[in-house]
């Protein structure tokens, strides 16, 4: 199998889905000739033309709302928010319109769109190019939210999102774009939405996380296995709404010790819901209190290198949290 980067995997998924289905089109700011500010849509304009790779006005509510209208008509729009931080003007369209379309019309209308948005910190992006915004959308029935942690999942989840009959928010970690490389199948495949994935088998404790924190955790887990003999089980949520409750429960029961990890601000984040699921279903299988590691509850995240580093969840913190839990 060949090795490609996370952003190449995203680009491949878009290209292949646009070839497969004429109704798939891309719209967003600078997605056309420029190929996106991160070049996620590179080459699409040349292959599919202006109509299917549409540069929109700087107008996020219109990007989402036009996608809603086109999806209602029967197209499969893939809208790009240039940064997840800029999704806020589109929240009304996503939450009040896209998420509720099927339910409110009693299954008459539907809204099969994808909204892609680069999220996450560690790229000197300051407050408005670093945020994790997924929790804002993670209590909206009707929406699905996926966050891939490696190139293979990035491609398979994006293909699944595009083929999904309902609106999917696809948050891609911008630091992962060129940092993460991995084996990606050449043949057509999807990664099913709604299924978490065990990324590492282990017996001493379980880490449940998603996004770029998966890669960080896997590196630490490997090192701790070699140096301390700690065996870490790692569950990647992949779909963070609605959560794969069964996989969460099984992963927690498997070791009886759980560390929940996110780079989002701690209070109100996705992992709070994961903790609730565990507490509700398998509290008596636990050998230690549920542990959480997350960013501080301050607006994400300062620009200066030293301040940003202080803000982020680091490998050292993950290592410390794992050792503490293993020794409990």
């Amino acid at each position, binding site marked *: 199998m060949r090795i490609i980067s996370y952003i190449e995997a995203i680009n491949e998924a878009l290209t292949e889905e646009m070839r497969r289905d004429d109704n798939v089109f891309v719209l967003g700011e600078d997605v056309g000739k420029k190929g996106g500010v991160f070049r996620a849509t590179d080459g699409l304009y040349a292959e599919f033309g202006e109509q299917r790779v549409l540069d929109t006005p700087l107008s996020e509510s*219109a990007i989402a*709302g036009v996608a809603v209208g086109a999806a209602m008509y029967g197209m499969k729009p893939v809208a790009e928010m240039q940064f997840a931080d800029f999704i806020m003007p589109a929240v009304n*369209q996503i939450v009040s319109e896209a998420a509720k379309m099927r339910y409110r*019309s009693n299954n*008459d209308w539907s809204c099969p769109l994808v909204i892609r948005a680069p999220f996450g910190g560690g790229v000197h992006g300051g407050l408005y190019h670093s945020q994790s915004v997924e929790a804002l959308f993670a209590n909206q029935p009707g929406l699905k939210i996926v966050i891939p942690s490696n190139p293979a999942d990035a491609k398979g989840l994006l293909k699944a999102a595009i083929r999904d009959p309902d609106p999917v928010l696809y948050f891609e970690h911008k630091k992962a774009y060129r940092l993460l490389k991995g084996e990606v199948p050449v043949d057509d495949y999807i990664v099913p939405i709604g299924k978490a994935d065990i990324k590492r088998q282990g017996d001493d404790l379980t880490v449940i996380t998603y996004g770029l924190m998966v890669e960080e955790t896997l590196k630490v887990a490997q090192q701790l296995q070699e140096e301390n003999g700690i065996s870490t089980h790692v569950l990647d949520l992949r779909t963070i709404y609605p959560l794969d409750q069964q996989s969460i429960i099984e992963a927690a029961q498997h070791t009886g010790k759980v560390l929940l990890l996110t780079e989002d601000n701690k209070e109100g984040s996705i992992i709070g819901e994961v903790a609730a699921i565990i507490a509700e279903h398998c509290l008596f299988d636990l050998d230690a209190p549920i542990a959480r590691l997350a960013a501080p509850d301050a607006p994400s995240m300062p620009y200066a290198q030293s301040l940003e580093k202080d803000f982020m969840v680091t490998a050292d913190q993950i290592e410390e949290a794992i050792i503490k839990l293993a020794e409990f």
Partner: protein
Amino acid sequence: MTISHKEHNISDELATDMYYSMLRARRVDERLWLLNRSGKIPFVISCQGQEAAQVGAAFALDLTQDYIAPYYRDLGLVLQAGMSVKDIMLNAFAKGEDPNSGGRQMQAHWSHKQLRILSGSSPVTTQVVHAAGVALAGKMTQKNFYTFVTLGEGSSNQGDFHEGLNFIGVHQLPVITMVENNQYAISTPYDRQVASPTVAQRAGSYNMPGVVVDGTDPLAVYIEVKKARLSNKPALIEALCSRLTPHSSDDDHRVYRSSEELQSDKDKDGLHHYELYLRNEGLLTDARIEEMEAQLKVEINEATNYADQAPYASLEHNLRYVYAEEETS
């Protein structure tokens, strides 16, 4: 009424049909208020005073293919677009058979896929960008339909109005946006809502024509919408109307409108003036109107009784369709 239907090649039959359509919307709307005040239905939001604009526009569209993104006052529009009085009553009674939402949404949140009526929500003006999306999709698939979207003048201050019309203007999409300016956004009058003398002049920013039209005259609105529809380009039409009822059944407009103003609006009622016009033209007589009224009474009574008796959606059904369901064969 200054426009002559004959001078605009509008047939006598069409002119009379428009009257019947306006009268139908008015009588249905009046029944909804009666039902609300007698405790039968929880809520009403009205079209009264705006029928002429809605019906005039509806007759100018090609309802066999055009898409409609209405707002909550558009009873006259959706009736003409093919929703039945029974559908309207099922919606008002929030019964399971309601084609708009099966009793899920409040009254007048119109939706009907088969009739190409886009589902709407309560946050206003979100439909303008949906209309842009439908029109864009039509352009991409090389279809010739128009998309017709309506809203109130208060809503024209929302960001989606600007974002939507700008998008429509940039891509010169075949969308007619009709602002039904009834002078009030609940209690706040036009001069506390909109900085410009007209909403129509905002069209200048969006590279499309903007016209103000007498929204109490169905012929005037028909002519403008028809013209826009033949242009193959976008247009913004501001139809000046008045709101003859409170904002909704939960409002009392006497708190913020003088009795003189209410009387003056009533005097300008388009339904009444259009009736007089058609009488002068010899197209309406007492006998013809009585016939229409009798026919409507039967239709509305039957629809009301049906909806009143109809069951609510089953509770087992209540949590369905959050997401697509697997096809069961």
